[in-house]
């Protein structure tokens, strides 16, 4: 059998493949190498989720001017393991009227996209588990499966709050998918490739500067897709109990939480790869993984910061934000980028570093202008409704005795 497949370029894969292949038949080594890669991916996501949960709880504590979990382990580092152990030993309840098979499958389908997404992310030079040449499309395809999982969870619970949560969650996912995909097109055009490794190589100037508008739209859209707090109408505790995971408990709930927080980690990794230069940095050949993790931490901190700062939006404000603010911004970014790439590229279709700096200047000015313009326009649209007492009703004022 030829080693002619997408994974063969991966050092880990090749190492296991050839090691096992010396004693056992070819196809067993094939399977073994694949299993090793899956093992690494699953554990990377789960450990990333654990670290992120701890960081988030401590930092949210700081933002709220309280302490946060600090009991078990140094600075409370073992808190996520305590959480997981608690969830594992909790009673695993399935509602009597639930669709049991779908109810069981939903958390698994929910966790799968977060794990699969990691397969194409380059952690350091030549370290992507599979450097697909359609990497960005692959990420979009895999994440689009999470809306199926949310609908499965909401429908199978046979609970109206879960169903409301799922319908809202999918509405948010579908609406924010449009601006996110459009702003990724700008990145693809500047990089000239959809492979994540090529995108990292193309960032002589980080796309943070070349595509500021795209980064803004992407961060906002992704935090909406991940159900982070300013956009978490799908599981709004004060309205819907807990949204689509109202009925879940025990290990299944742990899986849903792992999917949610692991999703934030993998989304940070994608942001770093596409906009912050991935593993680039001083001594990148040796310290690439360090720069990568440092940047991932910084982006994850921004997610936590936003969550601690903003109150939740209403569902209509959320839709207005996607369709009337992010979508025009991403379309403007797409047009501006395609014009710039069209006029600045050389005969080979390659952009020089100087051209990237020119684009940086234009796009930064354009981004600031557009955000100011559309921001002032959207402010009218998503203004909170002020309550007006109907004519003829007595109004209550403080201190008035009725």
């Amino acid at each position: 059998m030829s080693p002619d497949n997408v994974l063969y370029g991966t050092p880990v894969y090749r190492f296991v493949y050839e090691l096992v292949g010396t004693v056992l038949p070819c196809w067993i080594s094939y399977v073994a190498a694949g299993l090793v890669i899956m093992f690494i991916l699953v554990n990377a996501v789960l450990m990333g989720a654990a670290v992120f949960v701890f960081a988030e709880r401590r930092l949210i504590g700081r933002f709220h001017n309280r302490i946060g979990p600090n009991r078990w382990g140094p600075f409370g580092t073992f808190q996520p393991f305590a959480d997981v152990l608690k969830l594992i030993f909790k009673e695993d309840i399935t509602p009597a009227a639930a669709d049991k098979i779908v109810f069981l499958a939903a958390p698994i389908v929910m966790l799968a996209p977060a794990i699969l997404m990691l397969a194409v992310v380059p952690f350091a030079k030549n370290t992507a588990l599979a450097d697909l040449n359609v990497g960005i499309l692959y990420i979009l395809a895999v994440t689009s499966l999470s809306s199926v999982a949310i609908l499965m969870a909401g429908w199978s619970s046979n609970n109206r709050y879960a169903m409301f949560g799922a319908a809202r969650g999918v509405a948010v996912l579908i609406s924010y998918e449009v601006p996110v995909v459009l702003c990724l097109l700008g990145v693809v055009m500047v990089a000239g490739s959809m492979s994540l490794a090529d995108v990292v190589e193309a960032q002589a100037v980080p796309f943070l500067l070349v595509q500021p508008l795209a980064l803004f739209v992407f961060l906002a859209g992704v935090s909406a897709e991940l159900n982070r707090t300013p956009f978490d109408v799908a599981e709004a505790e004060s309205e819907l109990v807990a949204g689509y995971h109202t009925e879940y408990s025990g290990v299944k709930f742990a899986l849903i939480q792992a999917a949610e927080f692991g999703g934030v980690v993998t989304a940070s990794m994608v942001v770093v790869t596409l906009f912050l230069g991935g593993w680039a940095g001083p001594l990148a050949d040796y310290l690439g993984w360090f720069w990568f993790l440092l940047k991932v931490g910084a982006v994850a901190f921004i997610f936590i910061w936003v969550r601690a700062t903003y109150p939740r939006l209403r569902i209509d404000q959320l839709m207005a934000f996607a369709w009337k603010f992010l979508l025009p911004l991403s379309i403007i970014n797409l047009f501006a980028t395609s014009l710039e790439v069209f006029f600045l590229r050389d005969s080979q279709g390659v952009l020089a570093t100087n051209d990237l700096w020119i684009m940086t200047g234009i796009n930064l000015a354009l981004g600031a202008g557009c955000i100011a313009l559309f921001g002032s326009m959207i402010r009218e649209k998503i203004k909170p409704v002020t309550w007006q007492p109907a004519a003829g009703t007595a109004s209550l004022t403080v201190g008035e005795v009725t």
Partner: protein
Amino acid sequence: MLFQEIVFWVLSVLAIGASLGVVLVKDLFRAALLLVVVFIAVAGFFVLLNAEFLAVVQVLIYAGAIAILIIFAIMLTRDVQHGNLPNRFQIPAATLAAVLLAVMVAVAVDTKWDLLAGQAQSRAQAVQTSAVRTLESPRDLAGLERAGFATEGERTAAQEAGLADLLIGDFVLPFEAVSLLLLAAVIGALALVRPR
């Protein structure tokens, strides 16, 4: 080749089993989920054929978008809890499905699939670099290697350039017709839910 064959058979059993499930399962929601399984299995076939681009697009459009539309349609259906009830369209529907299957099989068997061998290939070459003169067919990996596409990635990119060229060149009419069909579907949906 053994491994590819095992994967092929597993995927085939999965795809056929799931598509039988789509038709036979009483619960409409489960039927829709089984349809997602069918879509993903078909994406697996595309991967086996080294067409990663098509596999990714298959998952993105069918499993990610069409399936969601179908599930929403099921949720908005009245009396969905009674399941997949039989109605008087059973025989016409079976006839139509059989005719459609016959037409599709006939077209699949009858089509000359080696499209790039003929006139379209020259345009594919022009789209790619002028170095690809030695190319026999886009699946000709040795030819691509001789033409200077050293790595696997470059070869796949060259093959996909041929695909893109076919979509925008020779098959531009069906391609645009499909997008018109989608537009008609959107307008139809809007007309259906419009408040009267």
